[in-house]
């Protein structure tokens, strides 16, 4: 080795000491990791991704094992507990069976009065004839009648001879304000009205109690005794069905579609797009034109068609045609994206290098290109999942979703929107679950992207 000329003034020889020759310093510092091993380590280290993995696992358990623990039939309706929020009062008192009522002219008292205690079975009111009236109209309000004279909901008109009324419309255990207004012969309201206020209690008749299993079949029913209605931890929906059970069963539909459809069409899209991008030329053009063609097809029309083609009988849930329609029609987006990335990567130096070394096409695609597009692919999948869930909800919105009574989170959201101001729990729970699923897949996708992204591999 020749002497390296040095500018003596710049370098102080005393600053350097010669080191000993030692053996074995060129050992392996750590085992060589394959791409996937490296990815797994990095994934485990990412706390957020780990939490999302647990969340996804948790949702799976909820769906698959939940019904084993909470064995309530999601289709069982209870009209006495319609749209009950969680934690609502469930006490009922037993009253005699319902009999039609046609007024009690001898009921004591004067003016507008209740005949018997108001209950959820019936509210019966009676009044004295008002002078000048040719008929009457009964109103019901849940607020006291203020100066605006907003009397509330008009329930019924009666003619002159009928000075009584029985209300059975959607009676809830709360205070109600009943008003009776006199009408002239042309059904216009006169200036005469009376109002009373009453509190409704929740009751059941013996036959209804027996139907719910609160009293044994042949046991004696004691009028006046108290019972408790079935517990619904997350409340009930618009037909009195248990929300928790419906969410569990709905998860199956939503997660099945939300997971499998994107999974399948993204895989197909990746294969398609990378082939097109890599091969280039006329093949690429042809493949991409076909993708354009698929994008422009009207989704709705083909959904209907596929349902017919699969001869979906009535009552079958129709999940499979929906899945098939989404897979057949939604892959072009991914394909285009992947193709774009491949076009970029194709020109990179290491690709030419690999090819010069004799790498085959499949090797190049599988080993070099796809891992480098992982970032984009993963983002696509994590967005495809909620998009698939929403597509299912949208189809329910226009009436082409799963057949009743099969629940799905999307259709539950749909129904919940209508009552979101009065009974928000019907919307909140399914929406929350959708959000959690979306969140989980997103964080997982983030973590996976960080873990799988080959370009970030060097950063320890």
């Amino acid at each position, binding site marked *: 080795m020749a002497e390296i000329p040095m500018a003596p003034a710049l370098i102080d020889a005393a600053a350097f000491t010669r080191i000993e020759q030692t053996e074995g310093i060129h050992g392996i510092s750590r085992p060589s990791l394959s791409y996937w091993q490296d990815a797994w380590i990095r994934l485990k280290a990412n706390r957020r991704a780990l939490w999302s993995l647990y969340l996804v696992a948790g949702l799976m358990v909820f769906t698959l094992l939940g019904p084993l623990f909470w064995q309530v039939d999601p289709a069982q309706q209870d009209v006495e507990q319609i749209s009950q929020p969680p934690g609502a009062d469930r006490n009922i008192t037993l009253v005699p069976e319902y009999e039609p009522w046609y007024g009690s002219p001898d009921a004591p008292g004067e003016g507008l009065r209740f005949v018997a205690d108001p209950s959820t079975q019936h509210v019966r009111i009676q009044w004295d004839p008002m002078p000048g009236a040719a008929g009457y109209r009964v109103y019901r309000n849940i607020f006291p009648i203020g100066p605006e004279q907003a009397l509330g909901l008009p329930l019924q008109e009666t003619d002159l001879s009928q000075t009584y009324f029985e209300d059975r419309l959607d009676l809830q255990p709360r205070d109600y304000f009943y008003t009776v207004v006199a009408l002239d012969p042309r059904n216009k309201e006169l200036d005469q009205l009376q109002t009373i206020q009453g509190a409704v209690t929740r009751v059941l008749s013996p036959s209804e109690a027996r139907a719910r299993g609160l009293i044994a079949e042949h046991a004696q029913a004691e009028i006046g005794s108290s019972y408790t209605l079935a517990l619904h931890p997350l409340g009930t929906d618009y037909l009195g069905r248990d929300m928790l059970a419906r969410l569990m069963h709905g998860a199956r539909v939503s997660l099945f579609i939300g997971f499998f459809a994107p999974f399948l069409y993204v895989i197909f899209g990746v294969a398609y797009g990378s082939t097109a991008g890599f091969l*280039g*030329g006329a093949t*690429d*053009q042809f493949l991409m*034109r076909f993708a*354009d*063609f698929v*994008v*422009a*097809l*009207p*989704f*709705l*029309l*083909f959904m*209907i*068609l596929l349902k*017919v*083609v699969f001869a979906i009988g009535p009552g079958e849930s129709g999940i499979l045609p929906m899945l098939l329609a989404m897979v057949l029609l939604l892959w*072009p*987006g991914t394909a*285009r*994206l992947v193709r*774009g*990335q491949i*076009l*970029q990567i194709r*020109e990179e130096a290491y690709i030419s290098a690999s090819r010069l070394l004799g790498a085959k096409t499949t090797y190049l695609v599988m080993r070099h290109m796809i891992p480098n597009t992982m*970032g*984009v692919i*993963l*983002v696509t999948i*994590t*967005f495809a999942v*909620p998009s698939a869930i*929403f597509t299912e*909800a*949208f189809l329910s*919105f*226009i009436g082409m979703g799963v057949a009743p009574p099969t629940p799905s989170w*999307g259709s539950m*959201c*749909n129904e919940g*929107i209508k009552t*979101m101001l009065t009974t928000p729990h019907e*919307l909140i729970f399914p*929406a929350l679950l*959708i*959000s959690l699923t*979306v*969140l989980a897949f*997103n964080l997982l996708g983030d973590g996976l*992207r960080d873990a799988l*992204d080959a*370009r*970030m591999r060097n*950063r320890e």
Partner: protein
Amino acid sequence: MWKYALKRVIQGVITVWFIATATFFAMHAVPGDPLSGDKALTERIRANLEIKYGLDKPLFTQYVIYLKNISQGDFGISFTQENRQVNDIIREHFPVSATLGILAIVFAAVGGVLWGALTALYRNRWPDTVIMFLVILGISVPSFVVAALGQLSLVKLNNLTGVSILPVGGWGTVWHMILPSMVLGLGTMAYLTRLMRSSMLEIISADYIRTAKAKGVPPTQIFTRHQLRNAILPVITVLGPSIAAITTGGFVVEIIFAIPGLGRYFVQAVQQLDYTVIMGTTVFYGAFLVFMVIVVDIIYGYIDPRVRLE
């Protein structure tokens, strides 16, 4: 360059023809027809109507006649709106949907690029967390929920302030456009934010960025010319199909905000099996989409010097 464009256009026409054919036969394969109504028709009257609309001819003949007509630009008359030409329907209502769609895309693209870049820059710090949280919210709420909530909030706001800040529905002025297009673009904006972020993160750690920094290139130039420009590429590729999704997904927004757009007509036409409107809008949308894809591809070729247009 022009040869390329011409080739693409020819391919586009062929694609549109395929679309028309597939839709035509799919449409006729679905049970039901535009003539059935709530009141039953006698056999005679039904036969008369079928002759009037040419539905009595064999399917293939109808197909050929239809192709001949559209090659001359005549999409026929709507079955449900019996005296309106489909051409008129498209001509009058497409600009509305297009406006809504364009604004939504612009909101989504601008928002997506800006927020995405911001979160990439401040990765794992508080702007990142806040924005990503909003993004998750934006993508986990379905469009009809957002539309309903948006309209309701506006009504409450108007009532509270006693002034009509923005119209809650209808169409006609600039103010009518704001809320519906924001609602429509929200989901896509969230998606583009994510995409942009992911793309930016990859680029930030790329070697050529390090080189540029080391060379002393001013940060603004690095940012705009290198990072933003390269990171935008995936976003642009996705814009093409997003446009289609937005113009048809606008259906929900059009109904809730009472907007006279083409999306609403199209879905109703599918439900009513109004053959001419279905064919007309599908062919039209198909052509429009194919055209947009061509435009996007050409733009892509300009921006990314590495991609050579063949």
